């Protein structure tokens, strides 16, 4: 009887060791937990982990804290994981900790936002900034029938990704000779501030035809401002945000189209890419890659070591009900 127990115990231990060796532990650290966008990425990561038979760890700070994020990465290194993917709050500040992770043989990646460019193995990019800027500008142009004025309300004035999108948006704007950008304002990550700034912008430039909210809080904020100012039908609100924030505004008629990518698919791709590299593969360069489980065909650019999910998605009243984030 005692021998049997020992035998069982040993076999369980062996089984546990083998199984823990066999499944990769892939961690994703978002900028902050608790916002719909990263929840959607988490859901995608979980789905990929189930499909691919890996363990997915999702953990991050509750505010967009740089120090907390670094601390969490440090803990993951101690805990021992196979891959760390991070959406850095500060692209430069995470370099040392990513170096440390790499030194321990951990696969280091960035996802959603790039950082530590000379350390990380790959950046899983939702869409190239150029594609996003261009897509928003094209939506703006369409909404105003290629003629008229528009304004932008962005998030934080130092947000690198938002500024890059605005830069490309302006590059594309040069191709529309009859469209004029009248002002760029900032409202942080605060819906009420975006409403107030939106109202002031509409007051200052009553002849604009489109108002753009560049981040997840500004877009619904400017839509609310259009409704409050009684300008539904005269001014379209659009921008970059999650569909759940815009559904009501589409019903009320202040929003017709807006832009985002699919963060669920981005989370999926992040875990898929980690597993793919951990298995010892290399991405085929510059051509669409078949990733079962997502709706786009990503492309890998070896020059910048970027794996790009695909072109951004334009949400319309026709497709919005398909998305639940």
């Amino acid at each position, binding site marked *: 009887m005692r021998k049997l127990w020992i035998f069982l115990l040993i076999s369980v231990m062996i089984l546990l060791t083998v199984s823990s060796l066999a499944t990769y532990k892939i961690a994703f650290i978002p900028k902050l*937990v608790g916002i719909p966008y990263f929840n959607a990425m988490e859901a995608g990561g979980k789905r990929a982990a189930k499909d691919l038979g890996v363990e997915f760890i999702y953990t991050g700070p*509750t505010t967009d804290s740089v120090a907390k994020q670094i601390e969490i990465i440090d803990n993951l290194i101690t805990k021992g994981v196979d891959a760390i993917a991070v959406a850095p709050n500060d692209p430069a500040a995470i370099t040392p900790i990513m170096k440390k992770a790499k030194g321990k043989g951990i696969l280091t990646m960035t996802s959603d936002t790039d950082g530590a460019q000379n350390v990380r193995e790959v950046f899983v990019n939702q869409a190239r900034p150029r594609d996003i800027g261009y897509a928003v500008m094209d939506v703006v142009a369409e909404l105003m029938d290629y003629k008229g004025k528009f304004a932008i309300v962005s998030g934080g004035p130092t947000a690198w990704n938002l500024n890059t999108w605005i830069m490309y948006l302006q590059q594309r704007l040069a191709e529309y000779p009859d469209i004029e950008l009248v002002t760029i304002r900032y409202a942080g990550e605060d819906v009420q501030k975006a409403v107030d*700034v939106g109202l002031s912008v509409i*007051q200052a430039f009553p002849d604009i035809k489109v108002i753009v909210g560049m981040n997840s809080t500004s877009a619904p*904020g400017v839509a609310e401002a259009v409704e409050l100012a009684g300008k539904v039908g005269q001014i379209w609100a659009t921008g970059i945000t999650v569909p759940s924030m815009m559904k009501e505004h589409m019903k009320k008629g202040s929003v017709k189209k807006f832009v985002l990518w699919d963060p669920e698919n981005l989370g999926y791709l992040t875990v898929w890419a980690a597993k793919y590299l951990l298995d010892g593969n290399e991405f085929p360069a510059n051509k669409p890659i078949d990733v079962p489980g997502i709706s786009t065909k990503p492309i890998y650019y070896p020059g910048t070591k970027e794996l790009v999910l695909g072109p951004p998605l334009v949400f319309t009243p026709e497709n919005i009900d398909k998305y639940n984030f």
Partner: protein
Amino acid sequence: MGLKRVIKSRELTVSLVMIGLVIFFSLSSKRFFTANNIRNILLQVSSIGVASIGMTMIIITGGIDVSAGSILGIVAVVLGKAAVGGFPAWLAIILGILVGLALGSVNASFVALLGIPPIIVTLGMMSLLRSLTYTFLGGRWIASLPESIRWMGLGKILNIPIPIWLTIILIAYFSYFMKYKSLGRYVYAVGNNIEATRIAGVNTKRVLFFVYALAGLLYGVAGAIVVGRTGIVQTNTGNNFELQVIAATVLGGTSILGGKGTVFGSLLGSLLIALLSNGLILLNVPALTEGLIIGILILGSVAIDVIKNRGEE
């Protein structure tokens, strides 16, 4: 109030700066001094103005409350969840405001009954309540709120929006309260010399408790306004709100050392900040200069105040 005191008051300094700005903006943009725009500015002020009543009283007692934004966040969550969960709008709003009162009373208990320094109590509450917001929301924002719950933000009486009514009524009442009610006078007394006030027979613990609990209630009202205006409850609703309220209060002449200040001054302070951010957009001044100008204004007006009152006390 004697003429000399009026001239020396911060309210006058801030009012003069405001009048100067209004004249300047009106001359620079014909779209500034319009009914629409004045409504926009007052709406922008409303939530900060209401919350600043409580903050002013707290700062007058020599305290501070950095948990205001986090309390507002919890109130927003309770309100949003209750509304989505099928509660009638009036009940959800009352529930939210009561939660504000309850959380204010927690602050009050620690500060007044246990005598823990307010900055420590409210710092603790700030991060504790923010974490609870994340937990309650489970990361999901509430976006599709029923229209009825938004009455506190969108409703109108006599074509004037509810948030503006609330601001005017509450500021007017508490200006009167602080000047003529004995409890109001005790708030100043506690700020000036808590020991002497206690020896004079005033229950100073009761005064302190009242101030923090009332502030919680007013953050609750502010929370109902914010949810009403935006129609969205985010995990970071109210983030940094306390800083805006403290800035308005200090700009409006409340001494951070306690004993001095008025709720009307705080309203002027928040008006000044809103006026500036609105006017700079109308003039299309580059956005990045806004923070710079507001910073200079706060430092400048406090400095003028100090210079004017030099040698008085």
